[in-house]
């Protein structure tokens, strides 16, 4: 399936869309295609709301954000996000604030079809006063001191669609990720539909040579999209490195609404698809993000003889 078809089939106005990938394998190309197709009123669920979220906000796709970190990595601020939150400029943004593990536990609950997930966070925090999703449960088992024990819980999140980026999958959707695997499996299992964007679609034999590497089995995947370099400016371990210069540049671009609009015009609306974005960046650029070789040593999955 092409990215255009995947977004057109699985992302609708008003949907709750999870985009996951913790610094590694951020599904940027999918975010750009959502912008190109002009989706509106989305609820975006993403632990680290970073550049791609700022871009989707600027393009007017997003009315609600569920996140645990709204910043441009350690490289600065997200200009559009701050304008939306601080000044409702050009329009308000509904924001649900969690911590990282709170978000992880929401995916865990969603993936496991649980009504809530307990965690040992939030005691004494002001967050429960601004987030109705943070509630407490009394354990039916006595605590260490024999007294009743309370623990915070978060509700499940079940996105209409989760989109992730991965290194590779086979045609039927068995998806392999290495390096940082983040919360991608949980985000996919929590969702009603799942789209996996990959650097490459590989032969069945490649995947089946190492079934433990399959982080997401095909039964949980609704569409596989081949989109090389689709995680830029984030990285894909073993494929290309992080574009740290772009992260640093984004604070400046996003601080100025005109510059941000121009950037979107040139790099998103001005490119028909991610392949055009990639070629517009040029081979010399991609050479600067090239990675070396550090191959895993094989293990033997051999079965009995005969």
């Amino acid at each position: 399936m092409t990215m255009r078809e995947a977004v057109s089939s699985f992302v609708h106005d008003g949907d709750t869309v999870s985009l996951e990938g913790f610094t590694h394998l951020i599904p940027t190309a999918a975010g750009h295609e959502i912008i190109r197709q002009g989706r509106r009123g989305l609820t975006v669920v993403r632990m680290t709301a970073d550049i791609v979220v700022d871009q989707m906000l600027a393009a007017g796709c997003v009315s609600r954000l569920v996140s645990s970190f709204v910043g441009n990595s350690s490289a600065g601020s997200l200009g559009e996000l701050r304008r939306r939150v601080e000044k409702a400029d050009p329009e308000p943004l509904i924001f649900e604030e969690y911590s990282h593990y709170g978000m992880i536990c929401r995916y865990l609950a969603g993936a496991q079809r649980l009504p809530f997930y307990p965690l040992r966070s939030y005691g004494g925090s002001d967050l429960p006063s601004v987030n109705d999703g943070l509630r407490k449960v009394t354990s039916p088992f006595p605590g260490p001191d024999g007294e009743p024990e309370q623990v915070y819980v978060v509700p499940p999140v079940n996105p209409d669609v989760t989109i992730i980026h991965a290194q590779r999958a086979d045609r039927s959707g068995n998806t392999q990720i290495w390096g940082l695997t983040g919360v991608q499996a949980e985000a996919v299992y929590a969702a009603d539909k799942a789209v996996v964007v990959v650097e490459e679609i590989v032969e069945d034999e490649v995947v089946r040579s190492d079934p433990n590497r399959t982080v997401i089995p095909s039964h949980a995947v609704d569409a596989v999209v081949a989109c090389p370099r689709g995680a830029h400016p984030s990285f894909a371990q073993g494929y290309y490195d992080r574009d740290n210069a772009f992260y640093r540049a984004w604070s400046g671009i996003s601080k100025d609404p005109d510059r941000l609009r121009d950037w979107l015009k040139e790099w998103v609306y001005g490119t028909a698809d991610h392949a055009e974005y990639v070629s517009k960046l040029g081979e010399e650029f991609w050479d600067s993000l090239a990675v070396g070789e550090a191959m895993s040593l094989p293990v033997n999955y051999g079965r009995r003889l005969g």
Partner: protein
Amino acid sequence: MTDSTTTTDVTSSELLAVVASRELAARRTVFAGIGLPTLAASLAHLTVAPQLEIVYESGVCGAHPSHLPETIADAVLITGAEAVLSMPALFGYVLQGGHIDVGFLGAAQIDKWGNLNTSVIGDWDAPKVRLPGSGGAIEVMANSREVFVVMRRHDPRSFTEKLDFCTTPGPDRAVEEGLRPLGTGVTRVITELGILARAGVGEELTLVAVHPGVTVDQVRENTGWDLAVADTVETVRPPGADELRLLREDVDPDRVYLR
């Protein structure tokens, strides 16, 4: 047991495997233990359900075994599999997450609502026979869209009015407790006498088909409760030559389970 000439050369295992395989038509995912369920699922994969993915509780998804596995964790299931998950992921995300269309279960005792006992014969505290227990059966029942039960023995002690112990409840019992199970519980019970079916919560198991040569009364006599019988009881189509050939030559040529 089945004395029809069309099936005289068919073993009981073959019969059950073939009949169970047909019920898997157009299914996507099946949670199967080793033995008859594996045979049935493997045969279905070659016949009525080419898209079928067999999920094993050991963590294997999309196995492509070179040989018929001898256990649910046989190394042949892992070599060349599409995915091997941890047990928290398999039980939490795949099974409880609602990704299983059909779960296969067996039991020492079953009642008319499809509740199962695999814990004890006698009292739990001082059992006459200690059985293995739930394993993952409680989870398979609670979370699969439907459950098929294959029982080699169809007699009043196994098909009982009252279980000695309810290890694995069907959704009817869960609903009584105020919970909301995902699936419909047992929808098919396949035995050497025929097929019992159940449409959903609140329904009891009903005889819908008998094997050639088996009478409805025979099934009634071998069932420990007052068995409901469908208005029209079908006769099960005996295993076909193609089905038997595939089962014997492709699925289990070494006759690991086709004893």
